[in-house]
């Protein structure tokens, strides 16, 4: 046995390691994951909804789809983003919303990576301002890192969908949360 775990075992309730403290941390991570992914999706979707032509152009700029398909994606994606974002912020159907959110992020990462690999110079259009940029002004790595973080947040919610301050908790009254009082 390693000396560290021996010390832990010796102390009855060392700060930060008891079941209550651990639950506080996982609860906190859950809320942060939900609000972060939810808020980003909500804002990104809203900014596209107010400029749908721009949203379509952003998809066209990836040069991956036929125009009609790009148009369909550009017009429907913002609705999905807003809906999933709102569900996450409210904490309703958290597991399903987290799954869709994480899946969206994986698709976005693939799209940005493909633009990068093909040497395109575009903005990801994540927040409605897509299209070509100057060759030195691309921010692919930054965009991918952000989306990986958000995908992880979504993944966390799939594994641990139960978070405080959520409609899910309110509607199902899980004993887990009643006991915390």
């Amino acid at each position, binding site marked *: 046995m390693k000396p560290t775990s021996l010390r832990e075992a010796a102390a009855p309730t060392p700060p930060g390691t008891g079941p209550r403290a651990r639950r506080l941390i996982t609860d906190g991570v859950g809320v942060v994951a939900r609000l972060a992914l939810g808020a980003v999706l909500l804002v990104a979707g809203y900014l596209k909804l107010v400029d749908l032509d721009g949203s379509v152009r*952003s998809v*066209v700029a990836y040069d991956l789809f036929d125009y009609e398909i790009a148009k369909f994606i550009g*017009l429907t994606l913002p609705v*999905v983003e807003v809906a999933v974002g709102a569900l996450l912020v409210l904490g309703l159907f958290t597991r399903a919303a987290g799954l869709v959110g994480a899946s969206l992020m994986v698709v976005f990462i693939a799209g940005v990576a493909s633009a990068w690999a093909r040497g395109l*110079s575009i903005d990801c259009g994540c927040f409605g301002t897509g299209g070509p940029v100057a060759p030195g002004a691309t921010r692919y790595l930054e965009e991918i890192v952000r989306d990986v973080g958000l995908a992880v947040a979504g993944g966390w919610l799939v594994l641990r969908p139960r978070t405080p301050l959520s409609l899910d908790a309110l509607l*199902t009254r899980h004993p887990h949360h009643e006991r915390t009082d």
Partner: protein
Amino acid sequence: MGLIGAVTAVLVAIVAVVVYLASRGDGLDAAGGANALAEGGGLVVNPDAGNVPEVIVYEDFQCPFCGQLEQTSGPQIVEAAQEGDIKLTYIFMSFLDGASGNQSSSRAANAAVCSADAGVLPDFVLEVFEDQPQEGVGYEDEAFLEAAESAGVEGEQLEQFTTCVQEQEYQGYVQDMAERSSQDGVTSTPTITVDGEALGQQQMQQLLSDPSAFDSVLAESQ
């Protein structure tokens, strides 16, 4: 819970489809006046050009680099068309409409279609870009009328032009040009294609900085 979840998912799908159906437009069938190609294909400067390279210029009247391009290389491009070395077409986009409070991009694009009816398209385009306001300030109708007068429109034709500008007669065609640009895969301005191939960053840079670059850029890209 499961039932509400399913209902929510279906609702989201329905809203998405409604947004799609409501915004996808109704085809590119608006009429565009003199020398306007069908399906938002733009305004041709010299329709009777022979078997020469086809140059399409995609611009938004509010885009600053379009102004720089026109002020630098515009005259040479128009000259090449007038001498029959190229077939020149303008497609005016209007995605910068949001940058000004008064839909300046699409109003300017509409005025350009009106100017083609008056037979002065290339001069009108050069004149408007000559006095391009700062991005976000936008154009007043007055600017289009002055540009048309400078291009030589007068009398009854000027009256027709004025009505055409004020009534935004070609609003539908302006929307079609915007959609056509996206269909052509053009997502930023200025973009120039020669026989369907977009000029590269470096060639555009030359046109933006060197007033005599067009002939050599054209020769390179064939």
